[in-house]
């Protein structure tokens, strides 16, 4: 009797806990949607997303330059972080002797624990002057992308490393026994076998990149002008909300929530992409 009771109780507790997370997510989604809806109806979805001018003072709310800013820092940082991250994952999983790995791996994990304001600070003090030597004020998409690259590296590295480690040793042996060199084995067998996991790591890294706020505010310049080059200042969607929410009222406030809705959709798309990647990976194991 009691055993069955415990069993049922455990089942309900797990169910309720699990649903709590889903319910919270739904509530957040509903809340920002409700708060953002007035802005969408007043400004118009099209004008809001594709409008070029953000001037709350004269009731101009277009966030295109910020969408471009967010996408630009994400794309540029990923262009730098993906090859670096995969190379580092290969090093950790396949090449480095265990001694080197026992130093490198904790170091990579430590990168995750550093608060983003510290990344912003380092970027501000170290990177901004360096980038300003190339051109512009130094507060730029390029600076932000470099900071972001460092921030997403641990995500890409650890997920890629895990998926490379999950490749059965028999693949490695099979390739080496055919007379493939170590690098040929990595490139020809191991990376293709691990590609879905690596893809998921990249997409999750992108999710982190597009959502990053504090470090971006500190180095990107937060200009509302449309950026024309990597050396221009820009503003991200997240930065827009964080910078203005304290004094915004009325349509302005609603427009900031609407910015959140756009951000939410972006992240939803990225997460779906990650799920598709992982699913395709497990299908490939069975069917190809």
């Amino acid at each position: 009797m009691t055993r069955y009771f415990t069993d049922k109780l455990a089942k309900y507790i797990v169910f309720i806990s699990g649903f709590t997370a889903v319910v919270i997510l739904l509530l957040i989604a509903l809340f920002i949607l409700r708060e953002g809806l007035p802005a969408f109806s007043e400004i118009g979805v099209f004008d809001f997303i594709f409008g070029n001018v953000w001037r709350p003072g004269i009731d101009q709310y277009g966030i295109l330059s910020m969408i471009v800013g967010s996408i630009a820092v994400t794309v540029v940082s990923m262009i730098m972080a993906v090859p670096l991250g995969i190379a580092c994952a290969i090093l950790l999983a396949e090449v480095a002797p265990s001694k080197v790995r026992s130093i490198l791996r904790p170091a990579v994990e430590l990168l995750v624990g550093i608060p983003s304001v510290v990344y912003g600070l380092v970027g501000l003090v170290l990177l901004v002057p360096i980038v300003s030597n190339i051109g512009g004020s130094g507060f730029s998409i390029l600076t932000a992308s470099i900071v972001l690259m460092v921030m997403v590296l641990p995500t890409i590295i650890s997920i890629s490393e895990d998926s490379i480690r999950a490749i059965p040793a028999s693949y490695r042996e099979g390739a080496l026994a055919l007379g493939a060199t170590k690098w040929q084995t990595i490139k020809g067998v191991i990376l293709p076998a691990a590609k879905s996991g690596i893809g998921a790591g990249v997409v999750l890294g992108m999710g982190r990149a597009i959502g990053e706020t504090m470090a971006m505010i500190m180095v990107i310049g937060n200009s509302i002008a449309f950026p024309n080059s990597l050396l221009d200042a820009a503003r991200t969607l997240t930065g827009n909300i964080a910078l203005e929410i304290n004094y915004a009222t009325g349509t302005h406030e609603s427009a900031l929530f609407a910015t959140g809705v756009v951000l939410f959709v972006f992240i939803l798309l990225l997460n779906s992409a990650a799920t598709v990647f992982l699913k395709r990976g497990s299908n490939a194991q069975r069917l190809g």
Partner: protein
Amino acid sequence: MTEYNFNGQNCHGDKIKAKNLNFYYGSFQALRDINLDIPGCAITAIIGPSGCGKSSFLRLLNRMNDLIYGSRIEGTIELDGKNIFDRDVDVVELRKNVGMVFQKPNPFPISIFDNIAFGPKQHGKKSKIELEEIVENSLKQAALWDEVKDKLGQSALALSGGQQQRLCIARVLSVEPEVILMDEPCSALDPMATLKIEDLMRTLAKNYTIIIVTHNMQQAARVSDTTAFFMMEPDRAGSLVEYGSTSEIFTNPKDKRTEDYITGRFG
């Protein structure tokens, strides 16, 4: 008098000679004083109870044990008169000449075509026509072509266990080895698939030197020309107890321990 088969390999006499071979994992001695001459273009079976070092011996022949940290070798293994442990031996080239089929079929998680083409590509064959020819020939030699010719683009993992193992044999053949090592190639297969692999081995033995490690004594008796019986010594080091033609080992063993093993008294 020298006989040559179609891929130019010398089939006459002994292909591989192990001399005073000792092998250690760290301080543990896994093989002691092995002396064994393996004839070319024939099947040699290595039998013995679990842990007697037969797989370790097999993996020395293409230096797969190089991958194990702390392993150490004394003595020599000559392939066509050349010690494979010499400094000037290119291990990549050695493994191309001495292919290996593993206990569990291990096709790569890519298409059937790419599985076979992988080896030749690594050895510099790039042209599509050449690769297509190699894939077809290898699959035909491995008696798999008719079953897969219409689905070369499909994942190799969708094949049955027996087909996967023949694919792995085809993959080995694709780099034109002279010796094929098989480490219990049928232990994960059903009897029908096993029979197919054994037929295939007999066909391949006309042109290739095959060495098979097996737990299955009927299999050793069915397919092999010569049989080597390994056993553990009291300190757990493996040693060669008896070696001779398969018919002799199975009908008239000289050593009492061989007789006890093949009649099923232990092991």
